[in-house]
């Protein structure tokens, strides 16, 4: 399914999960809605289960009681047990989900659940009090929310109508019209800029990234025309050996300074970790970034410094994520300090 739901008036959304009391996706306490389906295929992706735009099963070993009902019920014979647990033959699997429905212990779990906008909004409103107290709200993330634009619009519109702060976390890889649909109901845009070099971008994400930059430039025009109706934060994943060159950070900074001039208020550098390795295992994917290691603390500090210098005035650079205390790039040693200096303000 490309965009879920055919009737734009009654769209259904395919949602990976709703994470309540989320503290890392915008201001305050938020509920983050992870959409399923993404046009990019970043090799470092932390949520590989969010990339395919259809429900999928995966196996959670810690819950499995070994009853084998899943194997019995699978019409495609796509399941078998091995020494390392349940093996799902992804070629044979048709995502019929019979196994997950039969599994008594949710060890065969479905990634992806259908929501109507009303049901989703009702669920999100349960934390209204916490949103109000923290000046938080709801973040649509993913996956890629712009892949389900009708649904996303309904949800955002409804939340706005209830006075809830909304954030849209996007990779920017979509036709401009979709962003144009969603921006009027968005208070904060979290926009990924990963790599400025088109070839590297293509190599690591599958697409060249020019549309991402074009869209961001149009968002700038949109903001200027409407006198800054929304706040923009740029986010950059700092992946060792992939996006963590000072050159790349400075190039992104230059884009923020020159192209976005004055419309971006914050730039978040998010350091890589490999804690999602088990998800790749569950999906039967051999993850290339498994052994990337943590970003060295000193390097992260240098990048934050480069970011501050290059992004220009008025952009708060914020670095987060686990870092390693030494320069080594191998398996991370016991970390000594996980929080790099936070909230560094650009020198004036």
């Amino acid at each position, binding site marked *: 399914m490309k965009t879920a739901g055919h009737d734009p008036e009654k769209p259904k959304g395919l949602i990976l999960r709703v994470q309540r009391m*989320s503290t890392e996706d915008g201001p305050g*306490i938020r509920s983050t809605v992870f959409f399923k389906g993404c046009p990019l295929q970043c090799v470092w992706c932390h949520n590989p289960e969010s990339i395919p735009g259809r429900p999928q099963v995966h196996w959670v070993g810690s819950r499995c*009681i070994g009853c084998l009902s899943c194997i019995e019920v699978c019409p495609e014979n796509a399941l078998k047990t091995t020494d390392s647990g349940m093996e799902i033959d992804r070629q044979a699997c048709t995502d019929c989900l019979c196994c997950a429905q039969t599994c008594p212990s949710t060890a065969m779990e479905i990634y992806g659940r259908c929501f109507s906008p009303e049901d989703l909004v009702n669920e999100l409103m*349960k934390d209204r009090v916490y949103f109000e107290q923290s000046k938080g709200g709801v973040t649509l993330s993913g996956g890629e929310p712009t892949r389900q634009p009708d649904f996303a619009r309904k949800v955002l519109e409804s939340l706005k109508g209830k006075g809830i702060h909304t954030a849209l976390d996007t990779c920017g890889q979509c036709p401009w019209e979709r962003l144009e649909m969603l921006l009027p109901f968005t208070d904060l845009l979290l926009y990924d800029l990963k790599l400025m070099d088109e070839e590297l971008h293509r190599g690591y994400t599958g697409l060249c990234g020019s549309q991402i930059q074009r869209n961001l430039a149009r968002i700038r025009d949109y903001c200027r025309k409407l006198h800054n109706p929304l706040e923009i934060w740029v986010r950059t994943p700092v992946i060792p050996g992939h996006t963590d060159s000072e050159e790349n950070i400075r190039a992104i900074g230059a884009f923020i300074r020159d192209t976005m001039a004055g419309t971006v208020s914050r730039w978040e550098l998010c350091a890589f970790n490999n804690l999602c*390795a088990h998800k790749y295992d569950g999906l039967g994917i051999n993850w290339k970034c498994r052994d990337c290691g943590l970003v060295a603390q000193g390097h992260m500090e240098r990048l934050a410094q480069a970011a501050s210098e290059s992004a220009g005035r008025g952009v708060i650079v914020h670095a987060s994520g686990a870092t390693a205390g030494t320069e080594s790039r191998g398996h991370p040693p*016991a970390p000594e300090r996980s929080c790099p200096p*936070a909230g560094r303000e650009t020198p004036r």
Partner: protein
Amino acid sequence: MAMAEALDDPGKKIKKPKNLSPRIRWLRDYYFQGTSRAWNNEFTAWTTGMPWDVQFDEMTFYIVPETYAFLQTFRSSMQQAAHTVKLDPVFWTWSLPERKAWLIREVMVNHVPCEVLPGDLIAGGRFNIQTSMCWTKKEARERDRLIYGRKGARASMKWFHDHGYGNSGATSGHLIPGYERILNLGWKGIYEDLRRRYEFLDAKEKKGSTGAQLRAMMTAAAMPRDLAGKYAGLLEKLAGEEQDLLRKTELVRMAENLRHVPWEPARTFWEAVQALWITHMLVMSDENYPGPGVSFGRIDQYLLPYWEHSIAQGMDREFGKEILKCFWIHANTVYDAMIRIGNMGITSGYGQLITLSGMGRDGRDMTNDLTYAMLEVIDELSPILEPKPNIRLHKGSPEELLDKVVDMVSTSQGSPFLLNFDERSMAGMMREAKKACVEHLINEGNVHDYAPVGCLENTMAGNDRSGTVDNNLNLLKSVELALNDGKDFFDFVDPITGKREKVRQAGPRTGDAASLRSWEDFWSAYARQTKFIIKQCVELYEKSESIRARFCPTPYVSCLVKGCAEKGLDITQGGAELNFTTLEAVTFATTVDSLLAIRHLVYDTKQCTLQELVKALKANWQGFEKLQALATYKAPKYGRDDDEADAMARAVMDLWCEETWRHRTRSTGRQFRPGMLSWNYWVGDGFILPASPDGRPKGRFLSNAICPVSGADINGPTANMNSVGKALGGKAEKGPGDWGGYLNCLPNGASHTISMSPSLLRDPEHKEKFKAFLKGSLEQGGTSLQVNMIDAAMLHDAQRRPEGYQSLLVRITGYNAYFTTIGRELQNEVIARISHESL
């Protein structure tokens, strides 16, 4: 500020005391030398010398199952260790309360040594005693018959516990004595009041029990004066010998203080703290019960006038804190009671609770300079256990206080502290007023002066004994009985003697599994069994309560609780104005989830019959693993903010609460009221109660207080919080509710613990988010909250027992993962990181 330094320094692993003067450092270090100290406050035992004499009151430990095997040993060893007190020649002509008052006074004033430690600013050292019950031979024989008989209190309590119902016993401590009145009037004022009342009695009353009680209380009321006099004498002697001029001045001043207080009203802060300490320690002497739950109430309110006065008179603020720090160290000497053995099953802090901050009249915030001074004292002395702080928060709590609270949460290793939520708590107290028809004593005008005792058990102060730990009932027992027609699943086999006791028809016959055809049938069976187990608990309590009322007066404590002098009744006989006993429900969430699973599996989705489910439970799920998995993973659960599941929680709550309000003790007229504390029983009783329909096998922990079953709250802390608030009643659809729009069916309050990842407090931005979470919790959540920071120990436990930690979300600065779903290698890495983050 000192607090900020600790946070900024990532090298600090264990919290260390700081900003301590040489005096306080010495006292603190000396205290922590433990058994190697030359001085300690170990129990001393005192007897009338009669062969039938008893010192140890076992009933007060009926709620501590760990002690059951040792009750006889305690009794005998105290007897053996007891020193004989030379009795007044007419001692045996007096009434029991008079004998008791005289003996305790004699022991404390003339036998227990008085000592003052070097540098200490507060006098009042030894107070842990086990004293004669002062019974005549006839009284001792009668009491022993009631305790040890075949249907006596001990056998009954043991049966109750062995069969998984829980425990119950008339327990000491657990109240807020009227300390404020002592500071204002002095003991002289109390004594005068008693004397006037006594003189007002007619001759017959004087001869009777009322006269005896008032005479006993007068004797007790003079005890603090006499003991203060002893200490004053000692201090004068020490001052005479002292070479250091500064110390000499202090000793002289301390002696002067004690020549004045606690007999006269306090004039200065130093006098007030001294009077408070002597008065407090004697409560523990009087009850022979060190610490547990003898709470100070709103100490930052009633000490404030003295603090402000002394500061205005030139007292250095740091010196004021120095006085408080001495007071703090004194409070910790309760633990000396059995210093060479252990703490008689008391595994956590004793809970001499202090209440800080909170709401005043008209919603005003009462935080003041003394609140902050006390928080500084706690911070500077930490880690230290007593007195345990409970900070009252409300919608008007100042940002400065909230900031301090958040800082304390982030550095609270080893020093637990609790938060109380005023609005919800006050709603519960107002509900109590209405239910028990005591609106003249608890109302809009004074409900803000409530305070918690022990941990979080809400009461009023100075006129209230609510027996907040006395009855602990496993609601889950009624599920077992409902599934099995009112009978236990199994014969009981005594683990020590191996003696087998056949299953018998304990509860009402509510039909066997086959006959319960619909959910409504099952629910009505459950409801009848719930009423039955509550009745059982009430009957059991009556045994120890009536024995205590006849044989165990505490005339000194009675002086400190309004109502006793007025009625001429000891507090143990129901003398308090607010005369409650609390039924603390244990296993709430396990019960709710069990009912949800029964409805889901048997009646809604028909995945098994009730008979099959009973068979599975009797087999402890062996051979029924699929059914167990369905119950565990596919049935709805309380704690996820799922309205349907939370409606079940409300139904369970309403049922047992309403039933609880129907009962009163016969002997003492104490009204039962509902609460949820559940201390550590949810751990131990998990090995007694059989497998439960929620998927739990025998031996796995039950649920704690009002918390969701460990690991069931997979939608995070806000969902957990919302479920708890809903279980208590939520908010009124319209109108004022119980108080300010809030509803709360548990006047006692409910213990609620949440675990948080330390990364949530890693920088100012995230601390603000956490503060907002607390503010949201005030509106949405329960009566109290304890926040535990996830640490390496918890994660190691999660590796061992993943089933209890399904919901454990670890946040590694920006990345969240359910801990139990990631591989061992990564788990170890998370542990390494989190150990570091909690620095």
